[in-house]
């Protein structure tokens, strides 16, 4: 293990703990029978998160019919499994919203990318007629957590990255491994494993650039996250210095029976939902306000 890899491993061990509620929820993601009172008790001390969860439960994407104003009704409407995903989304948005200067991502860009991959993954499953695995949304949302850890190491070595990238036409995760001893997918997988997340989420983070390595049990979910990730990059969403430099798995393409028209449909179906969720997760950001101004002026 080279010295950067050692340092990265140590940083994963020291990575700030999740919000308490996420921690509780993460161990119950596959167990929808957990007592609601325990969640309500935790949320009592976190009005910010409670408000966020209600906003998400009221979003068109999570599709509660009619407005919900209490957690109890929110759970009744969206179901416990979805509720857990809302808690995770709300809890991790603060981490994902930050800019990453090593990967050259502006504030909100990683969050937008993560939300795009989450939404497009569910959309891709729907369009191709696959019953979406329960944790698909969350797997998409957290697949790039490793970048948060890797960012400052990439930044320190950025001149080596750009020099090698230009000369060798190499894939970015291969360069990460070569220069830093670890790629962001591995770092993310290790982090989620340390947090004892369900295996689907660990696999999606660890293998999203190499889905063929996922276990038989997880490979469908990882294939879907992988393709949605590449689609996001292709559309320039969260592409940074690395986005155009990953390979697409031929096995994933053929196992999902993909065509360009399917990807275009998934993109078009996803965008509004991505923008809606991102707006909730960021709070009322300047970007969104600006957009509304443009619409008023020119339409």
């Amino acid at each position, binding site marked *: 293990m080279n010295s950067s890899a050692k340092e990265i491993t140590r940083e994963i061990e020291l990575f700030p703990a999740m919000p308490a509620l996420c921690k509780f929820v993460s161990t119950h993601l596959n167990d929808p029978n957990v007592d609601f009172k325990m969640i309500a008790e935790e949320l009592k001390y976190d009005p910010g998160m409670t408000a966020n969860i209600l906003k998400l439960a009221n979003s068109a994407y999570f599709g509660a019919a009619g407005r919900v104003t209490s957690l109890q009704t929110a759970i009744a409407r969206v179901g416990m499994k979805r509720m857990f995903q809302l808690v995770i989304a709300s809890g991790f948005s603060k981490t994902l919203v930050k800019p990453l200067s090593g990967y050259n991502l502006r504030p909100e860009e990683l969050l937008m990318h993560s939300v795009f991959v989450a939404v497009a993954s569910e959309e891709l499953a729907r369009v191709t007629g696959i019953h979406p695995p329960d944790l698909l949304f969350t797997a998409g949302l957290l697949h790039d957590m490793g970048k948060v850890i890797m960012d400052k190491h990439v930044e320190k070595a950025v001149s080596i990255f750009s020099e090698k990238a230009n000369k060798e036409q190499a894939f970015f995760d291969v360069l990460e491994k070569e220069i830093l001893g670890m790629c962001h997918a591995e770092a993310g997988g290790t982090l989620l494993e340390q947090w004892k997340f369900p295996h689907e989420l660990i696999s999606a983070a660890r293998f999203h650039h190499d889905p063929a390595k996922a276990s038989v049990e997880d490979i469908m979910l990882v294939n879907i996250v992988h393709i949605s990730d590449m689609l996001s990059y292709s559309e320039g969403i969260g592409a940074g210095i690395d986005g155009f430099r990953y390979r697409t798995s031929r096995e994933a393409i053929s196992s999902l029976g*993909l065509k360009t028209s399917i990807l275009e449909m998934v993109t*078009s179906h996803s965008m509004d939902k991505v923008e809606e969720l991102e707006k909730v997760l960021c709070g009322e950001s300047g970007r969104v306000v600006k957009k509304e101004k443009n619409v008023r002026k020119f339409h």
Partner: protein
Amino acid sequence: MGKNIVVDIADMAIATSKDDILVTYSLGSCLGIAIYDPVAGIGGLMHCMLPLSSVDPEKAKDRPFMFVDTGMTIMLTQLFEAGLVKANTVIKVAGGAKLLDKNDLFRIGERNYTVFRKFLWKNGLMIKAENVGGDITRTVRLEMATGRFLIKSSGSEWEI
């Protein structure tokens, strides 16, 4: 000081003041299309994602600038309404990138560009300058004061 008008993904904006600068970030396979009339002092910038609205006609009604075909139709209509003169029109385009790993699936950039060319040809318009394809993301700006169309990618900036 010039005012930056940010054009979001799947959106378009028109500027009529010399002080304005239209900008759009992070074009991948998307196209950044600038249409400018130096005489009338009118310019527009669009950031469109997908070639044809036929993939999702309902969405195209809500978000016409998501697609090259509906986006171009409305952008030109609004520009002509604002006083753009066809004979003076300068059209520049950037984006349409493809992933480093060439495969037939992610041809969205190429398809965007083809539909764009076809649209211009049908309408008797020409591209003055372009910077499309390749495996890079681009940020583009249209300076209303000078008509300069600037492209920024991986740390360098140039004009086309």
